[in-house]
Protein backbone atom coordinates (compact mmCIF):
# COMPACT_ATOMS: atom_id res chain seq x y z
CA UNK A 1 0.00 0.00 0.00
CA UNK A 2 3.00 2.24 -0.02
CA UNK A 3 2.73 5.12 -2.51
CA UNK A 4 5.18 4.99 -5.39
CA UNK A 5 6.89 8.17 -4.24
CA UNK A 6 7.36 6.69 -0.79
CA UNK A 7 8.77 3.44 -2.17
CA UNK A 8 11.33 5.22 -4.30
CA UNK A 9 12.61 7.48 -1.48
CA UNK A 10 15.79 6.45 0.16
CA UNK A 11 15.73 5.48 3.80
CA UNK A 12 17.78 8.55 4.63
CA UNK A 13 15.31 10.84 2.91
CA UNK A 14 12.39 9.33 4.78
CA UNK A 15 14.14 9.52 8.12
CA UNK A 16 15.28 13.12 7.66
CA UNK A 17 11.85 14.28 6.48
CA UNK A 18 10.18 16.54 9.06
CA UNK A 19 8.29 14.33 11.52
CA UNK A 20 4.89 15.82 10.74
CA UNK A 21 5.34 15.00 7.05
CA UNK A 22 6.44 11.52 7.83
CA UNK A 23 3.45 11.05 10.09
CA UNK A 24 1.15 12.25 7.32
CA UNK A 25 2.72 9.76 4.94
CA UNK A 26 2.28 6.99 7.51
CA UNK A 27 -1.41 7.79 7.86
CA UNK A 28 -2.00 8.16 4.14
CA UNK A 29 -0.19 4.95 3.26
CA UNK A 30 -1.29 2.70 6.08
CA UNK A 31 -4.56 4.00 7.53
CA UNK A 32 -6.75 1.48 5.71
CA UNK A 33 -4.54 -1.43 6.78
CA UNK A 34 -4.58 -0.27 10.43
CA UNK A 35 -8.35 0.22 10.31
CA UNK A 36 -8.97 -3.23 8.84
CA UNK A 37 -6.54 -4.87 11.28
CA UNK A 38 -8.19 -3.30 14.33
CA UNK A 39 -11.62 -4.27 13.10
CA UNK A 40 -10.58 -7.87 12.50
CA UNK A 41 -8.78 -8.04 15.82
CA UNK A 42 -12.09 -7.37 17.54
CA UNK A 43 -12.48 -3.61 17.93
CA UNK A 44 -16.10 -2.69 17.32
CA UNK A 45 -17.29 -0.59 14.41
CA UNK A 46 -18.09 2.27 16.74
CA UNK A 47 -14.62 2.42 18.33
CA UNK A 48 -12.32 1.58 15.45
CA UNK A 49 -11.75 5.21 14.46
CA UNK A 50 -10.60 6.10 17.97
CA UNK A 51 -8.47 3.00 18.11
CA UNK A 52 -6.84 3.97 14.80
CA UNK A 53 -6.04 7.35 16.26
CA UNK A 54 -4.41 5.64 19.26
CA UNK A 55 -2.21 3.63 16.94
CA UNK A 56 -0.99 6.66 15.03
CA UNK A 57 -0.41 8.64 18.20
CA UNK A 58 1.88 5.88 19.43
CA UNK A 59 3.59 5.95 16.04
CA UNK A 60 4.05 9.70 16.40
CA UNK A 61 5.75 9.22 19.75
CA UNK A 62 8.02 6.54 18.37
CA UNK A 63 8.66 7.97 14.92
CA UNK A 64 12.41 8.16 15.35
CA UNK A 65 12.59 4.45 16.17
CA UNK A 66 10.59 3.22 13.19
CA UNK A 67 12.79 2.08 10.30
CA UNK A 68 11.34 3.15 6.92
CA UNK A 69 10.89 -0.41 5.68
CA UNK A 70 9.26 -1.54 8.93
CA UNK A 71 6.41 0.91 9.26
CA UNK A 72 3.69 -1.60 8.51
CA UNK A 73 5.15 -4.05 10.99
CA UNK A 74 5.28 -1.42 13.71
CA UNK A 75 1.73 -0.31 13.03
CA UNK A 76 0.39 -3.84 13.08
CA UNK A 77 2.06 -4.72 16.35
CA UNK A 78 0.74 -1.50 17.85
CA UNK A 79 -2.73 -2.32 16.52
CA UNK A 80 -2.52 -5.70 18.23
CA UNK A 81 -1.82 -4.09 21.57
CA UNK A 82 -4.46 -1.41 21.16
CA UNK A 83 -7.04 -4.04 20.21
CA UNK A 84 -6.11 -6.23 23.19
CA UNK A 85 -6.40 -3.26 25.56
CA UNK A 86 -9.71 -2.27 24.03
CA UNK A 87 -11.14 -5.73 24.52
CA UNK A 88 -9.98 -5.87 28.14
CA UNK A 89 -11.43 -2.47 28.91
CA UNK A 90 -14.69 -3.20 27.13
CA UNK A 91 -15.12 -6.49 28.88
CA UNK A 92 -14.55 -4.78 32.26
CA UNK A 93 -17.16 -2.13 31.42
CA UNK A 94 -19.74 -4.72 30.49
CA UNK A 95 -19.01 -6.90 33.49
CA UNK A 96 -19.41 -3.91 35.77
CA UNK A 97 -22.79 -3.24 34.20
CA UNK A 98 -23.81 -6.84 34.85
CA UNK A 99 -23.63 -7.91 31.23
CA UNK A 100 -21.17 -10.05 29.33
CA UNK A 101 -20.12 -8.33 26.13
CA UNK A 102 -19.61 -11.56 24.26
CA UNK A 103 -22.70 -13.33 25.55
CA UNK A 104 -25.10 -13.18 22.63
CA UNK A 105 -28.49 -14.71 23.51
CA UNK A 106 -29.32 -15.83 20.02
CA UNK A 107 -26.52 -16.58 17.54
CA UNK A 108 -28.99 -18.14 15.12
CA UNK A 109 -27.91 -18.39 11.52
CA UNK A 110 -29.50 -20.25 8.66
CA UNK A 111 -28.22 -20.18 5.07
CA UNK A 112 -30.56 -17.34 4.21
CA UNK A 113 -29.24 -15.26 7.09
CA UNK A 114 -25.66 -15.99 6.14
CA UNK A 115 -26.35 -14.38 2.80
CA UNK A 116 -26.96 -11.18 4.70
CA UNK A 117 -23.59 -9.48 4.72
CA UNK A 118 -24.06 -7.68 8.01
CA UNK A 119 -25.24 -10.75 9.83
CA UNK A 120 -22.38 -12.80 8.46
CA UNK A 121 -19.93 -10.16 9.63
CA UNK A 122 -21.37 -10.27 13.15
CA UNK A 123 -21.07 -14.02 13.19
CA UNK A 124 -17.48 -13.84 11.98
CA UNK A 125 -16.72 -11.56 14.94
CA UNK A 126 -18.26 -14.12 17.25
CA UNK A 127 -16.29 -16.95 15.68
CA UNK A 128 -13.05 -15.01 16.09
CA UNK A 129 -13.77 -13.66 19.57
CA UNK A 130 -13.16 -17.03 21.18
CA UNK A 131 -9.71 -17.28 19.63
CA UNK A 132 -6.56 -16.29 21.57
CA UNK A 133 -5.21 -13.03 20.18
CA UNK A 134 -1.95 -14.51 18.90
CA UNK A 135 -3.83 -17.08 16.83
CA UNK A 136 -6.41 -14.54 15.70
CA UNK A 137 -3.70 -12.19 14.41
CA UNK A 138 -2.16 -14.85 12.18
CA UNK A 139 -5.57 -16.07 11.05
CA UNK A 140 -6.91 -12.69 9.95
CA UNK A 141 -3.65 -11.75 8.26
CA UNK A 142 -3.53 -14.98 6.25
CA UNK A 143 -7.14 -15.85 5.57
CA UNK A 144 -8.67 -12.37 5.28
CA UNK A 145 -5.87 -9.87 4.60
CA UNK A 146 -4.30 -12.57 2.36
CA UNK A 147 -0.71 -11.90 3.33
CA UNK A 148 1.90 -14.57 2.72
CA UNK A 149 3.39 -16.56 5.57
CA UNK A 150 6.70 -14.75 5.28
CA UNK A 151 4.98 -11.36 5.29
CA UNK A 152 3.10 -12.36 8.43
CA UNK A 153 6.32 -13.53 10.05
CA UNK A 154 7.90 -10.15 9.34
CA UNK A 155 4.91 -8.04 10.33
CA UNK A 156 4.33 -9.97 13.55
CA UNK A 157 8.00 -10.49 14.37
CA UNK A 158 7.65 -14.23 14.89
CA UNK A 159 9.46 -17.14 13.21
CA UNK A 160 7.80 -18.65 10.12
CA UNK A 161 7.38 -21.95 11.95
CA UNK A 162 5.38 -20.25 14.63
CA UNK A 163 3.20 -18.63 11.97
CA UNK A 164 2.46 -22.04 10.46
CA UNK A 165 1.76 -23.60 13.83
CA UNK A 166 -0.55 -20.77 14.93
CA UNK A 167 -2.41 -20.79 11.62
CA UNK A 168 -3.11 -24.48 11.94
CA UNK A 169 -4.47 -24.07 15.46
CA UNK A 170 -6.42 -20.96 14.52
CA UNK A 171 -8.10 -22.77 11.67
CA UNK A 172 -9.20 -25.50 14.03
CA UNK A 173 -10.65 -22.90 16.42
CA UNK A 174 -12.41 -21.09 13.62
CA UNK A 175 -13.91 -24.18 12.05
CA UNK A 176 -15.24 -25.43 15.38
CA UNK A 177 -16.75 -22.04 16.17
CA UNK A 178 -18.21 -21.64 12.69
CA UNK A 179 -19.76 -25.08 12.91
CA UNK A 180 -21.31 -24.22 16.26
CA UNK A 181 -22.64 -20.90 15.07
CA UNK A 182 -24.08 -22.09 11.80
CA UNK A 183 -25.17 -25.65 12.50
CA UNK A 184 -26.08 -25.94 16.16
CA UNK A 185 -28.46 -23.06 16.24
CA UNK A 186 -30.12 -24.20 13.05
CA UNK A 187 -30.84 -27.55 14.68
CA UNK A 188 -32.37 -25.83 17.71
CA UNK A 189 -34.49 -23.64 15.49
CA UNK A 190 -35.60 -26.58 13.37
CA UNK A 191 -36.60 -28.41 16.54
CA UNK A 192 -38.59 -25.41 17.69
CA UNK A 193 -40.28 -25.19 14.32
CA UNK A 194 -41.23 -28.84 14.45
CA UNK A 195 -43.20 -28.42 17.67
Amino acid at each position, binding site marked *: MMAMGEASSTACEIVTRPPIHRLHALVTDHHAFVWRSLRRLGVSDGDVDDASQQVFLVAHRRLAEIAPDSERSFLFQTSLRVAADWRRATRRRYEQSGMDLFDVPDAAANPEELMDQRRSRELLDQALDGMPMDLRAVFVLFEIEEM*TMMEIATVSDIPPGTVASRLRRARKHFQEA*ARRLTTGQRAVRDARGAR
Partner: protein
Amino acid sequence: MIEPRRLREHGASNGERMLLNSARADRPPAGAAQRMVIAMEGLTAGSGGPGAGAPMAAHTNKMGTLAKVGLVALAGLGAVAAVVLAGALVQRMAGTRSATAEMPAVHTPVNQEGATEIAAEPPRVRAIPVPAVAPKPTSPLRGSANVPRHRELVALDASLSAEIRVLDTARAAVDAHNPTAAQRALDSYAQRFPQGHLKPEAAVLRLAVLVRLGNRQAAKSLAAQLLANESYKAYEARIRSLLRETGE
Protein backbone atom coordinates in the same frame (compact mmCIF):
# COMPACT_ATOMS: atom_id res chain seq x y z
CA MET B 1 8.16 -20.54 1.23
CA ILE B 2 5.44 -22.78 -0.19
CA GLU B 3 2.17 -21.28 0.90
CA PRO B 4 -0.75 -23.32 2.19
CA ARG B 5 -3.97 -22.70 0.33
CA ARG B 6 -6.42 -20.32 1.86
CA LEU B 7 -9.41 -21.81 3.62
CA ARG B 8 -11.78 -19.94 1.38
CA GLU B 9 -10.25 -21.58 -1.69
CA HIS B 10 -9.85 -25.05 -0.26
CA GLY B 11 -11.38 -26.94 2.62
CA ALA B 12 -13.94 -24.45 3.92
CA SER B 13 -17.59 -25.33 4.27
CA ASN B 14 -20.16 -23.03 2.68
CA GLY B 15 -20.87 -21.42 6.04
CA GLU B 16 -17.19 -20.85 6.75
CA ARG B 17 -16.69 -19.39 3.30
CA MET B 18 -19.54 -16.95 3.78
CA LEU B 19 -18.18 -15.84 7.15
CA LEU B 20 -14.73 -15.26 5.69
CA ASN B 21 -16.12 -13.45 2.66
CA SER B 22 -18.08 -11.09 4.89
CA ALA B 23 -14.82 -9.49 6.05
CA ARG B 24 -13.73 -8.61 2.53
CA ALA B 25 -15.97 -5.57 2.72
CA ASP B 26 -14.05 -4.23 5.73
CA ARG B 27 -12.83 -0.79 4.84
CA PRO B 28 -12.76 2.61 6.49
CA PRO B 29 -15.40 5.12 5.37
CA ALA B 30 -14.50 7.33 2.41
CA GLY B 31 -12.28 10.23 3.42
CA ALA B 32 -11.32 8.63 6.75
CA ALA B 33 -7.59 8.83 6.05
CA GLN B 34 -7.81 12.54 5.25
CA ARG B 35 -9.82 13.16 8.42
CA MET B 36 -7.22 11.23 10.38
CA VAL B 37 -4.44 13.41 8.94
CA ILE B 38 -6.30 16.54 10.04
CA ALA B 39 -7.02 15.06 13.46
CA MET B 40 -3.38 14.10 13.92
CA GLU B 41 -2.27 17.62 13.02
CA GLY B 42 -4.48 18.98 15.73
CA LEU B 43 -3.50 16.41 18.33
CA THR B 44 0.23 16.66 17.69
CA ALA B 45 0.31 20.46 17.41
CA GLY B 46 1.22 20.79 21.10
CA SER B 47 4.46 18.85 20.64
CA GLY B 48 5.87 21.58 18.35
CA GLY B 49 7.03 23.63 21.34
CA PRO B 50 5.64 26.57 23.35
CA GLY B 51 3.81 29.29 21.47
CA ALA B 52 3.46 27.20 18.34
CA GLY B 53 0.42 28.90 16.89
CA ALA B 54 0.96 27.31 13.46
CA PRO B 55 2.57 24.02 14.41
CA MET B 56 3.46 22.81 10.94
CA ALA B 57 4.90 26.18 9.86
CA ALA B 58 6.87 26.75 13.08
CA HIS B 59 8.24 23.24 12.94
CA THR B 60 9.20 23.64 9.29
CA ASN B 61 10.95 27.00 9.98
CA LYS B 62 12.96 25.48 12.81
CA MET B 63 13.97 22.59 10.60
CA GLY B 64 14.87 25.00 7.77
CA THR B 65 17.20 26.97 10.05
CA LEU B 66 18.88 23.86 11.31
CA ALA B 67 19.27 22.59 7.76
CA LYS B 68 21.04 25.84 6.81
CA VAL B 69 23.40 25.48 9.74
CA GLY B 70 24.16 21.99 8.60
CA LEU B 71 25.00 23.10 5.08
CA VAL B 72 27.39 25.79 6.29
CA ALA B 73 29.16 23.25 8.44
CA LEU B 74 29.37 20.86 5.51
CA ALA B 75 30.99 23.47 3.31
CA GLY B 76 33.35 24.92 5.89
CA LEU B 77 34.42 22.26 8.35
CA GLY B 78 35.09 19.15 6.28
CA ALA B 79 33.59 15.66 6.06
CA VAL B 80 34.11 14.52 9.66
CA ALA B 81 32.60 17.62 11.20
CA ALA B 82 29.73 17.45 8.71
CA VAL B 83 28.90 13.91 9.78
CA VAL B 84 28.78 14.96 13.42
CA LEU B 85 26.48 17.87 12.68
CA ALA B 86 24.27 15.81 10.38
CA GLY B 87 23.81 13.36 13.19
CA ALA B 88 22.80 16.15 15.54
CA LEU B 89 20.40 17.51 12.92
CA VAL B 90 18.69 14.15 12.48
CA GLN B 91 18.42 13.73 16.22
CA ARG B 92 16.95 17.22 16.61
CA MET B 93 14.40 16.58 13.87
CA ALA B 94 13.37 13.38 15.57
CA GLY B 95 12.68 15.45 18.65
CA THR B 96 14.70 13.22 20.92
CA ARG B 97 16.47 14.68 23.91
CA SER B 98 19.33 12.81 25.46
CA ALA B 99 20.01 13.09 29.15
CA THR B 100 23.36 14.72 28.51
CA ALA B 101 24.61 17.06 25.82
CA GLU B 102 26.91 14.42 24.31
CA MET B 103 26.14 12.80 20.99
CA PRO B 104 27.85 9.95 19.19
CA ALA B 105 30.05 10.79 16.20
CA VAL B 106 27.79 8.96 13.78
CA HIS B 107 24.21 8.82 14.87
CA THR B 108 21.38 6.94 13.23
CA PRO B 109 18.48 7.24 15.67
CA VAL B 110 16.24 4.95 13.63
CA ASN B 111 18.57 1.99 14.12
CA GLN B 112 19.85 2.87 17.51
CA GLU B 113 18.86 0.52 20.28
CA GLY B 114 17.31 2.19 23.25
CA ALA B 115 16.76 5.56 21.60
CA THR B 116 15.21 7.93 24.10
CA GLU B 117 11.51 8.65 23.93
CA ILE B 118 10.21 11.88 22.54
CA ALA B 119 9.87 13.93 25.69
CA ALA B 120 6.55 15.56 24.91
CA GLU B 121 3.55 13.57 26.04
CA PRO B 122 0.84 13.21 23.44
CA PRO B 123 -2.30 15.20 24.05
CA ARG B 124 -5.20 13.41 25.68
CA VAL B 125 -7.35 11.40 23.37
CA ARG B 126 -11.00 10.85 24.01
CA ALA B 127 -12.98 7.65 24.41
CA ILE B 128 -11.01 4.43 24.63
CA PRO B 129 -8.29 3.77 27.19
CA VAL B 130 -4.63 4.41 26.37
CA PRO B 131 -2.63 1.20 26.06
CA ALA B 132 -1.02 0.38 29.39
CA VAL B 133 2.32 -0.58 27.86
CA ALA B 134 3.95 1.09 24.88
CA PRO B 135 4.74 -1.40 22.14
CA LYS B 136 8.16 -2.92 21.74
CA PRO B 137 8.95 -2.41 18.08
CA THR B 138 11.49 -5.16 17.76
CA SER B 139 10.68 -5.91 14.15
CA PRO B 140 11.13 -2.32 12.89
CA LEU B 141 14.66 -2.24 14.22
CA ARG B 142 15.72 -5.17 12.04
CA GLY B 143 17.37 -4.62 8.70
CA SER B 144 16.47 -6.32 5.43
CA ALA B 145 19.55 -8.57 5.78
CA ASN B 146 17.45 -10.83 8.04
CA VAL B 147 15.16 -11.84 5.14
CA PRO B 148 16.27 -15.28 3.98
CA ARG B 149 17.11 -15.90 0.32
CA HIS B 150 14.78 -17.96 -1.86
CA ARG B 151 16.88 -21.14 -1.70
CA GLU B 152 16.92 -20.96 2.04
CA LEU B 153 13.17 -20.30 2.11
CA VAL B 154 12.43 -23.40 0.08
CA ALA B 155 14.60 -25.53 2.36
CA LEU B 156 13.05 -23.89 5.40
CA ASP B 157 9.56 -24.60 4.17
CA ALA B 158 10.30 -28.25 3.46
CA SER B 159 11.70 -28.69 6.95
CA LEU B 160 8.91 -26.78 8.63
CA SER B 161 6.15 -28.70 6.88
CA ALA B 162 7.70 -31.98 7.89
CA GLU B 163 8.28 -30.79 11.46
CA ILE B 164 4.70 -29.57 11.79
CA ARG B 165 3.35 -32.91 10.57
CA VAL B 166 5.35 -34.83 13.17
CA LEU B 167 4.42 -32.48 16.01
CA ASP B 168 0.77 -32.54 14.98
CA THR B 169 0.89 -36.32 15.33
CA ALA B 170 2.37 -35.95 18.79
CA ARG B 171 -0.17 -33.30 19.79
CA ALA B 172 -3.08 -35.41 18.55
CA ALA B 173 -1.80 -38.36 20.55
CA VAL B 174 -1.58 -36.20 23.70
CA ASP B 175 -5.13 -34.96 23.12
CA ALA B 176 -6.27 -38.55 22.66
CA HIS B 177 -4.63 -39.50 25.99
CA ASN B 178 -2.16 -41.77 24.23
CA PRO B 179 1.14 -40.63 25.75
CA THR B 180 3.02 -43.62 24.41
CA ALA B 181 2.23 -42.75 20.83
CA ALA B 182 3.02 -39.12 21.56
CA GLN B 183 6.37 -40.07 22.99
CA ARG B 184 7.18 -42.10 19.87
CA ALA B 185 6.32 -39.13 17.67
CA LEU B 186 8.48 -36.81 19.76
CA ASP B 187 11.40 -39.26 19.69
CA SER B 188 11.00 -39.38 15.92
CA TYR B 189 11.03 -35.56 15.82
CA ALA B 190 14.21 -35.37 17.90
CA GLN B 191 15.92 -37.90 15.66
CA ARG B 192 14.88 -36.38 12.35
CA PHE B 193 15.25 -32.73 13.31
CA PRO B 194 18.07 -32.37 15.83
CA GLN B 195 18.24 -28.65 14.97
CA GLY B 196 14.53 -28.29 14.29
CA HIS B 197 12.88 -24.89 14.09
CA LEU B 198 10.06 -26.05 16.36
CA LYS B 199 12.19 -27.46 19.15
CA PRO B 200 10.49 -25.28 21.78
CA GLU B 201 7.06 -26.60 20.79
CA ALA B 202 8.44 -30.13 20.91
CA ALA B 203 9.89 -29.58 24.38
CA VAL B 204 6.56 -28.34 25.76
CA LEU B 205 4.79 -31.31 24.19
CA ARG B 206 7.35 -33.57 25.80
CA LEU B 207 6.42 -32.04 29.15
CA ALA B 208 2.76 -32.72 28.47
CA VAL B 209 3.61 -36.36 27.70
CA LEU B 210 5.50 -36.75 30.97
CA VAL B 211 2.56 -35.32 32.86
CA ARG B 212 0.14 -37.71 31.11
CA LEU B 213 2.44 -40.65 31.89
CA GLY B 214 2.34 -39.67 35.53
CA ASN B 215 6.11 -39.20 35.63
CA ARG B 216 5.96 -36.30 38.07
CA GLN B 217 9.63 -36.11 38.90
CA ALA B 218 10.77 -35.96 35.27
CA ALA B 219 8.00 -33.49 34.46
CA LYS B 220 9.01 -31.18 37.30
CA SER B 221 12.63 -31.37 36.31
CA LEU B 222 11.91 -30.59 32.65
CA ALA B 223 9.52 -27.78 33.58
CA ALA B 224 12.19 -26.19 35.79
CA GLN B 225 14.69 -26.29 32.93
CA LEU B 226 12.26 -24.73 30.50
CA LEU B 227 11.17 -22.00 32.89
CA ALA B 228 14.80 -21.09 33.51
CA ASN B 229 15.38 -20.65 29.78
CA GLU B 230 14.50 -17.24 28.34
CA SER B 231 13.62 -18.87 24.97
CA TYR B 232 10.57 -20.45 26.57
CA LYS B 233 9.12 -17.28 28.00
CA ALA B 234 6.25 -17.37 25.49
CA TYR B 235 5.31 -20.83 26.78
CA GLU B 236 5.41 -19.97 30.47
CA ALA B 237 1.67 -20.06 31.02
CA ARG B 238 1.37 -23.44 29.34
CA ILE B 239 4.33 -24.88 31.25
CA ARG B 240 2.95 -23.71 34.58
CA SER B 241 -0.47 -25.10 33.71
CA LEU B 242 1.08 -28.51 33.02
CA LEU B 243 3.11 -28.26 36.22
CA ARG B 244 -0.08 -27.70 38.18
CA GLU B 245 -1.41 -31.00 36.81
CA THR B 246 1.46 -32.76 38.60
CA GLY B 247 0.22 -31.31 41.84
CA GLU B 248 2.90 -28.59 42.07
